[in-house]
């Protein structure tokens, strides 16, 4: 594995560890409902502070079940991950294509160089001859 790949995997591992540690050490055990959403807890806190508060508007559409809701969340993540993967895949492909073109160009240049050195003597003579004719015309 290259150094780059090692650092990238380490970053992913750290993120995974940060997510797993609270679960593994049961840091939600002191709660009635462990690992509930902070957004929901805030709603509870609001009703604690102001028990009379009634939400004055309700969502236009509400996922009918937890399954549908998680499906839509997965959809959101999938769309995002898909676009990101497309971007990086396209970049990688383009870079490889460019590298290949460069290689080919370099090979061509090498071949051309070989021809050039062989022709160099002739070219010099040609130049001299044309210069001579030019002078003659003046």
């Amino acid at each position, binding site marked *: 594995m290259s150094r780059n790949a090692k650092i990238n995997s380490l970053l992913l591992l750290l993120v995974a560890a940060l997510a797993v540690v609270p679960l593994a050490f049961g840091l939600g055990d002191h709660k009635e409902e462990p690992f509930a959403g902070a957004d929901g807890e*805030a709603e509870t806190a609001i009703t604690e502070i102001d028990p009379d508060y009634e939400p004055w508007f309700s969502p236009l559409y509400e996922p009918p079940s937890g399954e549908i809701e998680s499906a839509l969340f997965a959809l959101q993540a999938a769309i995002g991950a898909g676009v990101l993967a497309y971007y990086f895949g396209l970049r990688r492909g383009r870079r490889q294509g460019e590298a290949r073109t460069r290689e080919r160009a370099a090979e061509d240049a090498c071949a051309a160089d070989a021809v050039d050195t062989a022709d160099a003597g002739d070219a010099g003579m040609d130049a001299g001859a044309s210069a001579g004719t030019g002078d003659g015309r003046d």
Partner: protein
Amino acid sequence: MHIAEGFLPPAHAVAWGVASAPFVVHGARSLVRDVREHPESTLLLGASGAFTFVLSALKLPSVTGSCSHPTGTGLGAILFRPPVMAVLGTITLLFQALLLAHGGLTTLGANVFSMAIVGPWAGYAVYRLLRRYDLPLMGAVFCAAFVADLSTYCVTSVQLALAFPDPGSGFLGALGKFGSIFAVTQIPLAVSEGLLTVLVMRLLVQSSKGELTRLGVLVASAAGKKRAESAESAQAVAR
């Protein structure tokens, strides 16, 4: 950081909407201008929006025993400046409000203000400041993403404390209460977001050097020149 539908009193909902609207309109204008001037950056723009989409769908457990999610707005703010993120963040929040009943239309203004305006601007400010003092790129990226994430949740706490001051301890008491729910939970998640943003930025540096240089994130040529100059002067001194 999503304040649920109907959970802000009407006056607050309208006020936050009015506060957010100009940022989103200005952001939409600069987004259109960016795309028109640099059509080649559309793809990276889409990728930045996609990063926000993924991260704000990832609900992660935190040390406080509750779950929350990162925002993913730091990356786009560094790459395309904060106004553009006001638009991309709003799109994400609209998706969640309309399809997931997460957040809401009446609280959209407040949620946009925290996640799509204050977060990106705070992150961008930190990024620029640290870069001015020559902190390495990845260090600045980590801090920017961390601050963008955490500041979003701090703003949400303030918004809720303003709307629901504690009857006994007032605004500050309520701020402590909402802050302990949102901000403390968010600290490890903000670290995660920082790490993920650094990861994506590393991949971008490997894959899109030209684009990053055009956006001013990488100043490879300038740094190269400086290095060459210092090497030359060192040689001159040696002579």
